[in-house]
């Protein structure tokens, strides 16, 4: 094959891929909707297996907007230099972060909210539940308010799953994101401030998750 022939072959291949991608319909998964699930009893399981305390400062500048941010975090597509800069900042608060019991905060908020409604009965053990709500804590910590601001606010990034009593995942929601209402410069974050703001965002998120199920 001549060089020209090879170039033509590559171009034709690229065009076929391009046409395939541009005409590829959005993947319509046959997902169960939350409203379709008939909960009899629900058990809540919180997983911290992939929990990662992080500070997102320099990495915020890599994306066009914060819209891309959570996806970038999930995919680990950030540059090493910016990630190292952010890690250095996170290190100064890591000891304080280790003392924050996000699981208990989320669980308490969810249990209290479910208890205030008679919509879904809670099971005391997984074996007694018709369904299990699995809450996976992913990234959490401090995130720049937006690209233009230097102020940070607390955030929490979770994955929610519903498992039926056959142990099959029947519903999943990735990137359940919550952000705190307050914001401050990174330098102003003490152990107390980080703790109180993370507690507030965890409590708010726990309530919000439960309300999504109650008003599904």
């Amino acid at each position, binding site marked *: 094959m001549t060089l020209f022939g090879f170039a*033509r072959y590559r*171009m*034709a291949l690229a*065009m076929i891929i*391009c*046409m395939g*991608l*541009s*005409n*590829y*319909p*959005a*993947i319509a998964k046959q997902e169960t909707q939350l409203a379709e699930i008939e909960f009899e009893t629900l058990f809540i399981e919180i997983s911290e297996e992939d929990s990662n305390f992080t500070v997102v400062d320099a990495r915020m500048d890599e*994306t*066009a*907007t*914060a*819209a*891309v941010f*959570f*996806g*970038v975090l999930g*995919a680990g*597509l950030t540059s090493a230099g910016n990630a190292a800069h952010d890690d250095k900042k996170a290190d100064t608060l890591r000891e304080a972060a280790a003392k924050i019991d996000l699981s208990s905060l989320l669980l308490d908020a969810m249990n209290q909210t479910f208890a205030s409604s008679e919509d879904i009965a809670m099971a005391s053990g997984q074996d007694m539940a018709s369904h299990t709500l699995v809450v996976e804590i992913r990234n959490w910590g401090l995130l720049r308010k*937006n*690209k*233009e601001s230097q102020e940070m606010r607390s955030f929490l990034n979770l994955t929610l799953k519903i498992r039926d009593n056959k142990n099959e995942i029947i519903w999943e929601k*990735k*990137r359940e*994101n*919550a*952000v705190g*209402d307050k914001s401050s410069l990174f330098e102003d974050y003490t152990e107390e401030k980080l703790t109180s703001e993370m507690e507030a965002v965890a409590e708010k998120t726990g*309530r*919000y998750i439960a*309300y*999504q199920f109650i*008003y*599904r």
Partner: protein
Amino acid sequence: MKRFVILIFAALGLSACAFGDAELALGLNPETTNKGLISEASSATLYLADVDDQRTDKERIGYKRNGYGMKTADILAETPPPEVVKESLAVVLETNGHSLGAADERYALQTTLNNFWFDYKTGFVSVEFYGSIQAVLSLVDQSTGDAVYSETFDGYHSEKTGGGLKGTWERIMNETLADLAKKVNLSPGFKDALDGIASNAAVDDAVAADVSGS
């Protein structure tokens, strides 16, 4: 050679769309908006003020990008985003049994729109689309000018698909809008504030009746 020329023209034809602006039809569907926590507040009447647009970029809601991530054209909203957000809030309030009153109502819902953005990142065989909307809602007592409640809401939606054009982008942004609406709909703080408005209105009415009766 002839086939090569045809391929060149076909490639140009296919990529041309990347250089034209796209306009998305955005809005919250009232039929898919359910009653939420704020329906449990006593029925309140409030003035829904125009949304204060504080977005950094007011000219567009996103960029079309080529395979290298370079901006090639704008993605626009058919209806300006502040109006889209205001209309969505009206749907949420009315679905939950609250009423929209005139500008002289004692309480006004003031909204600041900080972000309304669509973007995507192209991977090797898939594209991840993202939408993000941030709005700060404040309930203001217009008789004193005090905010009795304020909360920041972040609507977010992302999807990874094999690809997608205008229809997909519209769906992503409408899902983002629905996420924002759901968060407003399920906010305990907003519910309490609406309850407060309704009970203050009842007191105001009782006082007015008392004054006119005496």
